[in-house]
C-alpha cells in the first residue's frame, strides 16, 4: 500500500496516481453516504451538498478570497462540524417523511446549495459565484507543505504521492469508523430503522434522533472529504457539486453493496477508475468507426443509469452484499420458491 503510488507512477504515469487519490476521496464520500443510505435506509440524493459545504468552508478560510489562511487543523474539523449542522438542518424537518419524499427534498436541498453557491457573489461577494475560488492553500503545517516536491537522495516524492498518504490514512480511518459503527449500538439501531421503523420505535429506539445522527454523521464524512478535496485541487467552483455528482456517489454505494463497507469501497474505486478507463473509448471509436459517436463522459452517464437499473433488477444487494442483506434475499427467495 505504501509503495503503490510509486509503482503506479513508474508504470502507468502520474495521472493515475492522481486518479487513485481521487478514488480514495470518493471512498470517504461513499462511506459517508453509506451511513445514511446503507445503514439507515434513508435515500439522500443531495449528499454532494455536504461535500460542497466542507469544500467551501475550507476554501473560504484558506485562500486569498478573504485573505484568511487558517490551518487545516482548524478547518477540517470546522468543515466537518458545519456540514453536520447542515445535515441536522436538512434532516430535522424532513425525517418525519417517508423515504421517497425524503429523496426529493434532499435532491432539492442539494440544488439549493448549488444555486446559492452560484449566486452568492452579489451583493457581497462571498463565494465568487460561478468562477469559484482559486489559489486555495494546500495542507501545510510547520513549514511542511503537501504541495511541494521533496527529494531524498534521488527519490522524488511529488505532491500527488504525499496526498496519497494523507488520503489513504483518512480513508482507512473512515473504514475503521464505519466498521465500528456498524456493530455498535447506534449502527444496529440504524439497521433496525431501515428494516422496520415501527418495530424499531417499539423497541425503544428514538427514531428521530437516531436518524438525525445518521444524517449528521454522513454529512461529517462528506464535510471532511470536501475540505481535503479543496486543498487537493486548489480550486473549487459550484460546477463540481451538481446532482450528477450526488448520483455518482449513490451509484458507488448501490453498486458496491449498500450497508457493506467492503462493497462500498470496491464500488468507489471501481466507479472512479472506470470513467478514466472509458476515456480510451473516444480514440478507439475514432480509430475503428471513423468518428467519435459517443462522448466518453456521456457513455459514462449512460452506463451509470443502466447499471442502477440492472443492479436493482438483478442484484439488488450490490456486487458485494452485506451478510444480513444476503441472508434476507435468501429467505425471500426460498419463501417465493415455497409459494
Amino acid at each position, binding site marked *: 500500500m505504501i509503495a503503490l503510488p510509486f509503482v503506479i507512477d513508474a508504470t502507468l504515469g502520474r495521472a493515475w496516481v492522481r486518479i487513485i487519490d481521487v478514488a480514495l476521496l470518493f471512498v470517504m464520500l461513499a462511506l459517508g453516504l453509506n451511513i445514511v443510505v446503507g445503514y439507515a435506509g434513508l435515500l439522500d440524493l443531495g449528499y454532494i451538498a455536504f461535500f460542497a459545504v466542507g469544500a467551501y468552508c475550507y476554501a473560504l478560510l484558506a485562500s486569498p478570497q478573504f485573505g484568511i489562511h487558517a490551518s487545516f487543523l482548524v478547518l477540517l474539523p470546522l468543515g466537518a462540524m458545519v456540514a453536520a449542522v447542515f445535515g441536522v438542518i436538512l434532516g430535522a424537518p424532513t425525517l418525519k417523511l417517508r423515504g*421517497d419524499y425524503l429523496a426529493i427534498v434532499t435532491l432539492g436541498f442539494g440544488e*439549493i446549495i448549488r*444555486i446559492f453557491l452560484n449566486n452568492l457573489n452579489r451583493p457581497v461577494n462571498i463565494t465568487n459565484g460561478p468562477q469559484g475560488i482559486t489559489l486555495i492553500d494546500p495542507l501545510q503545517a510547520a513549514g511542511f507543505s503537501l504541495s511541494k516536491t521533496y527529494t531524498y537522495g534521488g527519490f522524488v516524492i511529488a505532491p500527488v504521492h504525499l496526498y496519497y498518504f494523507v488520503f489513504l490514512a483518512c480513508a482507512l480511518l473512515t473504514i475503521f469508523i464505519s466498521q465500528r459503527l456498524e456493530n455498535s449500538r447506534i449502527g444496529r439501531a440504524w439497521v433496525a430503522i431501515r428494516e422496520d421503523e415501527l418495530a424499531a420505535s417499539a423497541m425503544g429506539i428514538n427514531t428521530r434522533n437516531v436518524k438525525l445522527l445518521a444524517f449528521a454523521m454522513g454529512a461529517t464524512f462528506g464535510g471532511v472529504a470536501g475540505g481535503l478535496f479543496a486543498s487537493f485541487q486548489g480550486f473549487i467552483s459550484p460546477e463540481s457539486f451538481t446532482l450528477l455528482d450526488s448520483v455518482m456517489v449513490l451509484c458507488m454505494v448501490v453498486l458496491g453493496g449498500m450497508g457493506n463497507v467492503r462493497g462500498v469501497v470496491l464500488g468507489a474505486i471501481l466507479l472512479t477508475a472506470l470513467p478514466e478507463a472509458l476515456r480510451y473509448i473516444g480514440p478507439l471509436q475514432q480509430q475503428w468507426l471513423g468518428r467519435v459517436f*459517443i462522448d466518453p463522459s456521456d457513455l459514462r452517464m*449512460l452506463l*451509470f443509469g443502466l447499471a442502477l437499473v440492472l443492479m436493482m433488477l438483478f442484484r439488488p444487494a450490490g456486487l458485494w452484499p452485506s451478510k444480513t442483506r444476503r441472508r434476507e434475499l435468501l429467505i425471500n427467495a426460498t419463501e417465493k420458491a415455497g409459494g
Partner: protein
Amino acid sequence: MDIFLQQILNGLLLGSIYALVALGYTMVYGILGLINFAHGDIVMVGALVAWSVISALGASLPVPTVLLLATAAAIVVCVVLGLVVERAAYRPLRHAPRLAPLITAIGVSILIQYSAALVWGKQYLSLPEIVKPGQIEFGGAQITTTQAFIFVLACAIMAALLWFVKASRMGRAMRATEQNPDVAGLMGVNTTRVIAFTFALGASIGAIAGVMVVLYYGQGHYFMGFMLGLKAFTAAVLGGIGNIPGAMLGGLLLGLIESLAAGYMGDITGGVFGSNYRDVYAFIVLVLVLMLRPSGLMGVGSGDRA
C-alpha cells in the same frame, strides 16, 4: 402595462403546464405509490420530438397541421417510452422494497437524459418561429395568442381527464386500483393493464405538456426535464399527491408563486434575491408543504402518505 396582472397571467400559464406534468406524477403515485422520477424526462423527450418535427417541416405546411403532427409524434414516442419504462424497470420491482424502484427510476431518468443527448446533442435547440403570434390585450397586460392557446388547451385537457377518470369504465378501474389493487383484481379489474394504461395516459399528457413547453420557451434542451419534473412533483405534493384535481390546483398555484416571487422578490430585497433564485422558490414551497401539511391542500390526511 400592468405588471402585477402580467405576472399573474404568466404564472397561470406556467402553472397550467406544471399542472399537466404534475398529473403524470400524481396518477402513477396514486396507483403504485411510486415517484416516477423519469416522468420529467419523458416530457423532455416529447418536447424534443416536437422540436424536431416542427423544425423539419417548418413553414412547408399550414401551422395547425405542423403543430398537430408534432403533437401526435410526441405522444406516440412518449407513450411507447412510458410503456417500455414501466414494463422493463418498474413492473419487475412492484413487490420489492421501497428503495429499489426509486433507485431504478433515477437510473431510468439518467438513461433517458443521456440517450436524448446522443440523439439531439447537448446544445440548446431553438425553435424556428413558424408563425408570428398576435398579441392579446387583457386589462393592461399582454399575452400572445400562442400562450392563450396553450392555457386554453391545458384547461381543456384537465377537464377531459377529470371527466374520463370519473365517468369512463377505465377511469373507474383506475380509481378501484388506486383504492386497493388486490380487491380491484378480485373484482375482475386487470390491474397490470390499468397500471400500464396509467403510465401511457400520464406519458401522453406529458407529451402534450412537452410540446407546450417548447412552444412557450421557444427552445429545448436534453436536461430541461429535470427542473420541470421537480417543479411538477412539487406541484403534485402541494395539491396532495395521488389527487388529480389537487395536482391541477397545485400546478397553477406553484406557477403563480414562482412568477410572483421571481418578479417581486428582487425588488423587495433590493436585487439580492433576483430572478436567478427562481428555482429555489419551488423547493421552499416543497419543504414548507411537507413540513406543515404533508397531505397537501386537497389530499386526505393519511399516516402512510407522509
